């Protein structure tokens, strides 16, 4: 009996080790470049990080990323100057673009169409409109030299707050030992990406709750306040507040959106306040193939081509011949 238990534990350990090696050897796990918050309160990635983004258990989608000196995923460094035409693309994971090779990004596709233009992609996963406007404001010195600023937005997700607050707690937590161990256990990272560890976490959570209950710390009755921003009016009001806080250069700054998933009242608000936007919905509607990836909903190569076309067509008129 003792021999059986000991041998089972030994085998389990060896099997886990072998699986860790296999996951690393076939590079099945996605890398997550470390996060940081700079002196301007802007969350970004640690400069110089490189790695791979993977989607699908069997590595069906595999791309490379490279974090530049400014802390954003891009093949180029961001060095704005007065003598070139520069565009800043600001947004969330769609702009950050881990799902594409960093040298085949939306910005690169725009540059391929307009050789005189340089595109700086300030993308950060989960970035809301508050984050984006804070970034533009915080990097004012650099953005003064940039000719055009395009903020990518999704109406449902991006207008939940009136002011940006950098999540120092999260960045600090990610640097703690348990998280560093977790990050270095690629088998766990791989399992987490595809929901394999979720049942384990659920059971562990239930046991933990049960322990708290037996210790007399029952939190079941405590109501957790939900932050629900459901009304369109509230979102628009948030945007108005953001404009008041961070300002809005109507000549230089514009939104990039899909009007099919944007409330008409928001578009009316933009029109009334001279906030310009680029709408790529028509291009997507006319698409002859899927515009998003199979394994997640980010734009695929074709989708990015279409959006690059929309942006380039607009910029063509602005860039000096």
């Amino acid at each position: 009996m003792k021999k059986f238990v000991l041998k089972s534990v030994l085998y389990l350990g060896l099997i886990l080790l072998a699986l860790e090696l296999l996951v690393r050897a076939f590079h099945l796990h996605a890398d997550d470049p470390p996060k940081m918050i700079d002196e301007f309160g802007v969350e970004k990635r640690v400069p110089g990080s490189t790695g791979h983004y993977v989607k699908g258990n069997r590595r069906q989608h595999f791309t490379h990323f490279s974090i530049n000196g400014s802390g954003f995923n891009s093949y180029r460094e961001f060095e704005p100057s007065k003598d070139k035409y520069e565009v800043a693309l600001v947004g969330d994971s769609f702009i950050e673009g881990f799902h594409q090779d960093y040298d085949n990004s939306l910005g690169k596709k725009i540059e391929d169409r307009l050789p005189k233009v340089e595109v700086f992609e300030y993308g950060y996963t989960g970035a809301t409109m508050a984050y984006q406007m804070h970034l533009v404001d915080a990097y004012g010195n650099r953005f003064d030299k940039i000719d055009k600023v395009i903020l990518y937005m999704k109406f449902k997700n991006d207008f939940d707050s009136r002011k940006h607050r950098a999540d120092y707690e999260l960045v600090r937590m990610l640097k703690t030992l348990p998280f560093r161990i977790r990050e270095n256990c690629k088998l766990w990272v791989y399992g987490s990406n595809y929901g394999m560890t979720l049942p384990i976490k659920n059971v562990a959570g239930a046991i933990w709750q049960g322990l708290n209950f037996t210790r007399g710390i029952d939190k079941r009755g405590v109501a957790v306040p939900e932050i629900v921003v459901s009304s369109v009016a509230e979102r628009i009001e948030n945007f108005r507040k953001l404009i008041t806080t961070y300002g809005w250069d109507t000549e230089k700054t514009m939104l990039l959106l899909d009007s099919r998933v944007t409330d008409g009242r928001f578009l009316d608000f933009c029109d009334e306040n001279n906030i310009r936007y680029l709408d790529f919905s028509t291009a997507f509607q006319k698409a002859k193939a899927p515009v998003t990836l199979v394994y997640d909903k980010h734009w695929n190569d074709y989708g990015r081509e279409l959006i690059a076309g929309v942006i380039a067509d607009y910029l063509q008129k602005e860039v000096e011949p």
Partner: protein
Amino acid sequence: MLFNSVQFALFLPIAFLCYWGITQIRPKAQNLFLIGASYLFYAWWDWRFLGLIAFSTVVDYVVGQRIYVHLDDRRRAKAWLMLSVMANLGLLGFFKYYNFFVDSFVDGLQALGYTPESSYTLNIILPVGISFYTFQTLSYSFDIYYRRLKPTTNFVAFAAFVSFFPQLVAGPIERASNLLHQIERSRKFHYTQAADGLKLILWGLFKKLVIADSLAPMVDDIFAHYGTYPSSTLILGVVMFSFQVYGDFSGYSDIAIGTAKLFGIELMSNFRFPHFSRNVAEYWQRWHVSLSTWFRHYVYIPLGGSRVSKRRAVFNIAVVFLVSGLWHGANWTFVFWGGFHALLFIPVFLLKRNRIYMESVIGQNSFLPSVKEIGQVLLTFGLVTFSRIFFRSPTLTDAFGYIQGIFTDVRIAAYTHPVGYRMIDYYVLMLLFVVYEYRIRKNERNPFHFKSPVIRFVLYVLVIFAMLLFYDDGVNRSFIYFQF
């Protein structure tokens, strides 16, 4: 509690350690512990139906005693036997078939031009495993009635026999002569037995998580939209369903047998590589063996079996297959499925080829099967797979629509996964599975039977690695046979 859940992954080692821990202190408490663990296992799904198991246990325990007392008075013994039959089939009839018979009756009336004013169907939940444990307890009463078995006087052992959790909800349907006798004796821990149990659990999990669960989304998609697909896709769909249902149910059985081994108990084999069968008779000696033998012993032989006129024997075979079909589910599709198998089996029986492959396996004395064997296996697999259109379709209309699609829209077109995954992965997976199953075809109880410990270890790792590679958190993880 599903075998493929984290809850079971926690439950099993705790139960295992407590069980053998108790054994060292008080061996007689083994069965009490098994009852507690089994009832907890079942209650995890729905505690309200524990009463049914307890009811079935008490009835058959008492009936078994009474039959034995009146064995010389066949009329009274039969009366007691009928009580067991009525109690068990009454439970089964109410929970599983009540709505089916009411609906069928109403449909019949409507066909005659009479429409009842109100519906008499009930909103009944089917207690999981009811088809399995009622048949198990019934077999106990039958065996006493036919003088094959003496009733036990140990109620605790009998309760443990009925509720033994590894095989409670989906078999194998054990006979008292095998399982009860083991439970009546005190078990001792054997290293080899426990290690073999773990290997079977691992192989069963592979069949369930990798083969069955990864093919399920495609099977569901093709059967749900059969009207839009060409014949090549429809054939692919039902072939994949063959792999799915085999992986699902034989995987479950392997886990059940492996789990029982951990507790020092040997259950009967339920699947012996049925898809390598050379005719339909051999298939039924290899597929769901515990159910096939149950019907042979308690339906076919009491009806006269094959020791009657040819016409009567053919009738007996037809009855067994139709009843077996109905056992699977309260739906005419299953009756059709059973009837179709009867049609496949009867010619084999009449040609006296139903017992020729009982002692051998494909490629018995050679590394590769002969061309003739490959042809036989492909034909049998094709026929059995075709029958599964009835097994899988929700209604007869759907089943015939599916078949019509195969024969009318004859085209070859590439099928794309509903989520967009690479299809080649699944084709390679199925091919490797067939090759490996062929490699181990002579011993279903030891899927990792290799002398070299290094090869065995590599196989363990690869099997678990495949589970990771084909894990899909969007799949319904329940076992197909739970619905029966």
